[in-house]
């Protein structure tokens, strides 16, 4: 049986607005990152895979099961939306139990799996807490636990790290990596750091189209030799911003240490440096729109 997600010629419309354009993707076991601006179509794509939206055109199959038969797909997919909660007056355990029943797990299976999962997401001491009393991070972890409750082959998580503090975020990313050892995990984010830390394969979406698909290493390689840093005055910074994509800056007294993208060395004091995912992403986004100032 197939263990990949195959997306062929997927087009998605909301009325007249086209949300996805001719998407072709093959997603294999492990972490897969979806990167893009807000409104690029990441959530739409994930909802189509999770059978929450009917696809308008094209084919989507999840481990050999077409999304035209949602019942089949739902058995093997776990989904964690960006905005979610649970009945506030239920306890953590009750909420898990309720969703477990909806997933068709027997009483014995639920008794066995739920405590184990709560332990895995470090909520074992909070199982009697009401859902409404949970912090944002705890709720996210509970979200992951419910999504893998029925041991799905595919886990889809939409912007899971939004709103988490840095420590929670790191912990959460590690948890996802562990889970991805045995299944497909699709992770969407607009935070480049998440991708850098977790994903090998990624796709970048822009205005509904895939503008890059491949490994993170290849993406960075595209930008190799195009990232420079220079210490310039604040006045010069304005001029620099007009001509180049500035990916970061650090104020040093009256001067600024700027990091920017350029096809070739723009001036003598600019120093070539090693590219990161963030640089590569910015390069990609602007190259796609023909905005690269060089």
């Amino acid at each position: 049986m197939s263990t990949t997600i195959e997306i062929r010629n997927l087009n998605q419309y909301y009325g007249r607005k086209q949300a996805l354009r001719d998407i072709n993707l093959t997603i294999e076991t492990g972490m897969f990152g979806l990167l893009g601006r807000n409104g690029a179509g990441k959530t739409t794509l994930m909802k189509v895979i999770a059978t929450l939206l009917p696809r308008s055109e094209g084919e989507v199959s999840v481990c050999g099961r077409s999304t035209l038969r949602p019942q089949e797909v739902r058995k093997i997919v776990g989904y964690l939306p960006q905005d979610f909660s649970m009945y506030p007056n239920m306890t953590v355990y009750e909420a898990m139990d309720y969703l477990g029943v909806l997933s068709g797990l027997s009483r014995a299976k639920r008794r066995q799996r739920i405590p184990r999962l709560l332990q895995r997401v470090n909520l074992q001491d909070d199982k009697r807490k009401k859902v409404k009393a949970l912090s944002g991070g705890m709720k996210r972890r509970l979200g992951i636990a419910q999504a893998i409750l029925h041991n799905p082959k595919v886990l889809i998580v939409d912007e899971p790290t939004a709103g988490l503090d840095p420590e929670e975020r790191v912990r959460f990313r590690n948890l996802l990596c562990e889970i991805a050892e045995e299944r497909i995990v699709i992770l969407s984010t607009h935070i480049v750091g998440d991708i850098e830390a977790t994903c090998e394969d990624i796709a970048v979406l822009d205005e509904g189209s895939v503008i890059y698909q491949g490994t993170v290493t290849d993406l960075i390689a595209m930008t190799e030799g195009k990232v420079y840093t220079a210490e310039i005055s604040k006045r010069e910074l304005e001029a620099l911003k007009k001509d180049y994509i500035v990916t970061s800056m650090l104020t040093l007294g009256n001067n600024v240490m700027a990091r920017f993208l350029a096809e070739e060395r723009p001036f003598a004091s600019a120093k070539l440096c090693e590219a990161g995912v963030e640089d590569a992403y910015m390069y990609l986004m602007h190259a796609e729109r023909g905005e690269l100032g060089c």
Partner: protein
Amino acid sequence: MLGQLFAKECKQTAKSLIYWLIVLILIFGFTTQLGNNMEIAKEPKPGRASYGYQASHDPEIIMSHTLGKLTEEYFRGNYTTYPIGFYKNVTLDKEDDHRIGEILKEAAGITGKEEAGRVMEDWYTAQTELKEAESGGTEAEDMGPNDVNAGDMMYREPLKIEPAAGLTYERFAELMDEADKILGGGSEYGKDDREMNAEVPKTYEDAKKEYNTLIEKDGLTGGYARLFCDYMGIFLGILPVFLAVTRGMRDRRAVMQELIYTRRCPSLTVVASRYLAMIVMLVLPVLALSVFPLAKCMNYARTAGITVDMLAFVKYTFGWLMPMIMIAAALGMFLTELTDTAAAVLVQGAWWFVAIFGGVQTLRGGMYGWNLVPRHNTEFNWQGYHDGFAQLALNRTLYAAAALLLTLLTAYIYSQKRKGRLQIRGKILANRKSKS
């Protein structure tokens, strides 16, 4: 899966505020309407001045009473009607008024307003004299002619007009049907009403027979179970919708919809488990409340040495009240799933309003029609119940079936929404990337 979900839904319902509010209202409704002032009927003793009134089935009496009403209203120039139940005063234009005059002439031989007025006056004088003679001038029973609450009670006898010589009952019925049509329906002259019009005093024998029927045919409890249903129905015709709407909106409110949508559980199972839980949880307090009148009946039966039908309240609760709970809950679920708003409250509210005011005319029972809230505001009238039973059974079956159909439709809508279709409320809003 259904069984486990059902149990969980019941537990959730038992923990919800709205459910306990509904239970409180039911208790309140029961105690104020029935609980405190329910007296078990005693066996009538001979020799009392009055045993109340009852409807007559004698054509002669029906004709004379109905024509009396028509004369009175024709003379006054306005007519009381209840088109779908709410009080309406009809004043006719010249042409229609003239036609009523003709009808009255053919049916009763009364020509014109003046003669009608004379007849009225004679009757009124006779009544006043009768009343004065009876009360012997005591103040207590004296009701002024302007006292609206007095109604017909201030007259010892309603106005009766003998039908014209040779008028057959068939022709009389035709004429009255025409008058009812002219008045826009719901008047005193339509079929149901004119048969109820003829109130005659009950004799001791009548009262005794009525009592015996209650004991023999109804096993005492049957009559009180109907009375119980009559009162509880007023509340159960609307309250379930509040529970259903709240349940329907809970998933969205808790932002839990997508977590549930992506589970493997079939939509029908989800919807059916919720629906069943609502019905069961609403029937339970009703059954619990019915224990009180049952206990009262049993108490009385023990002292009077009667055997009672122990299961009457259970039977009536399931047969009479449950279809009502079913349809109100199903409608609530359906409209909430369809619109994601509380629109069902408005719809059920409007239906309830029409049902209640429409039922005012049929309080006595027996005329159940298609009313959502069938009325039978007496422990007696077993005969009416017996005669109207087929209609009542049809009525209840229809609503129960409609409820099941609505539940299936709800499951269909639910399954479509799960797949991202039929999202009436803000398609773009629902799929929008929310700000972070």
